[in-house]
């Protein structure tokens, strides 16, 4: 059985009993979560429109369609694709779409701030401003790898080589910025070393 809100399989079969009225609702895990959270917040939330409905709050149709066209600089996913699939494309999406994701995340979790464990990395030299816990600098590699595929596609091999060096540079910089015992090893199988050849085949992947 399909979810009433999307194409996924319905995992939750909810029977609502309201003033003698019995209503059956079939939802996938994600939509059920949103639905149940909304049932909780009664009155303040909008109709049970799932994740997409939540995003619609306070937006006109035009605003919503503009929002949908936003693209991640690293993985290239559009906000529209995310809304359809319910899955983000890469870690950078949380930075790129931060504003758009905030109401959605608030609705799911009832919170917008992490309160759990954190990486135990420390910055070399104790540089607080470097925020060694956050791995955002590393996500640049995702974009660079995409550029390599495009370069190979256009037979710009010199450019691809430069980009590959840049990936190594980003990884080394990260490596150098955190304490050695918790650093990224990039001796084997690290991105950039085996891109050529195989990467060409991936490049034509439909967006």
């Amino acid at each position, binding site marked *: 059985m399909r979810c009433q809100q999307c194409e996924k399989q*319905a*995992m*939750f*079969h*909810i*029977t609502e009993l309201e003033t003698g009225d019995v209503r059956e609702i079939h939802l996938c895990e*994600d939509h*059920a*979560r949103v639905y*149940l*959270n909304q*049932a909780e917040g009664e009155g303040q939330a909008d109709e049970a429109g799932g994740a997409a409905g939540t995003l619609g709050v306070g937006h006109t149709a035009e605003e919503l369609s503009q929002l949908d066209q936003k693209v991640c600089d*690293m*993985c290239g*996913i559009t906000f529209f694709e995310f809304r359809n*699939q319910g*899955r*983000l*494309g*890469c*870690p950078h999406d*949380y930075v790129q779409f931060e504003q758009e*994701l905030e109401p*959605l*995340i608030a609705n*799911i*979790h*009832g*919170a*917008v701030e*992490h*309160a*759990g*464990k*954190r*990486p*135990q990395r420390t910055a070399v030299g104790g540089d607080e401003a470097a*925020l060694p816990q*956050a*791995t955002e600098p*590393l*996500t640049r*590699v*995702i974009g660079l*790898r995409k550029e390599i595929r495009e370069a190979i596609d256009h037979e710009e091999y010199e450019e691809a080589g430069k980009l590959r060096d840049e990936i190594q540079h980003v*990884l080394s910089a990260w490596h150098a910025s955190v304490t050695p*015992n*918790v650093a*990224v*090893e990039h001796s*084997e*199988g*690290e*991105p950039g070393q*085996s*891109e050529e050849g*195989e*990467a060409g*085949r*991936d490049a034509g992947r439909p967006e």
Partner: protein
Amino acid sequence: MKLDALTASNGEWLKGTGPEADIVMSSRVRLARNLAQYPFVGRASDHERSEIEQFLRGRLTRVPTGATLDYLDLGALEELDRQFLVERQLISREHAEATGARGVAIDTQEQVSLMVNEEDHLRIQCLHSGFDLEAVWKQVRSVDDEIETVVPYAFHDRWGYLTACPTNVGTGIRVSVMLHLPALVITRQIDKVFRSLHKISLAVRGLYGEGSQAFGDFYQISNQTTLGRSEEELISQVADVVPVLIDYERRAREFLVQETEQNVHDQVSRAYGILRTAQTISVEETMQLLSRVRMGVLLGLLADVDVADINLLLVRTQPAHLQKLRGAELDTKDRNIERARFLRKYFESGGTEAN
């Protein structure tokens, strides 16, 4: 081969040991983690997926997790073997049915399972028999810490650990406890219990995650939110409700014995009778009947069966286990015949010889 060793062993969560093991089958914690330098699995190219798999595989087997890990390449396994791992609760159904580079590292005790390229790059799972969330968390936390020394997990100062689905972001934690609640089902109180669990934002699903239509009165209770509270708080959210459910179930069992003793004794005995004599039986019916027998044993209504036997049968009568034990692929009809044969033989031999 590793999988054959698993077939012969009993697995962690069905040992039937640990605190409150008469009602709490197992306790589980999983963490969702991703590499910072790759797209999430759903967005990664085939080549990137292979790189992610190699990157993690090499490190996971080297990390001192305190457990001996075996790595299985799921892409290279037969469908039957993948299904077997699902029944064993070592991988998810989605992980079994996916395509592309993916794998799982399993420790020999079957407590730790590290899924590579599931919905997230890495899912760290730890599973114990009985009600044991504190020990499970301790273990999962130390495995996570060890892996983090060699793997740059995607982490954001405000959002915490970053996951493919925003429903897991923050701690990436899913805490679940599997409960056997037959008396609450028989006394028709189970729906009321579920409604109250939903109100405190806990999710309920059946064994093997098949939505709310649980077979055999086995239910999994888990947290739904992952952000804004610490792992310990989220674990408490689940752990605090378990003693209440245990209490409800115990009282319902007492009620059944006191008010309807003949009736419940009759139901349990009939269930046992069918299991010992049927010539063909579906997996659903088997689970339903084993559930009743399990309750009967715990109520002292059936003397010659052990709870550990029932736990074992619950898993060994699942489709893939049955076929692995038989050593042949069977269609549904033949499986039902083989299942009935297996059960008759098991009870005839007093559980000593299962084949």
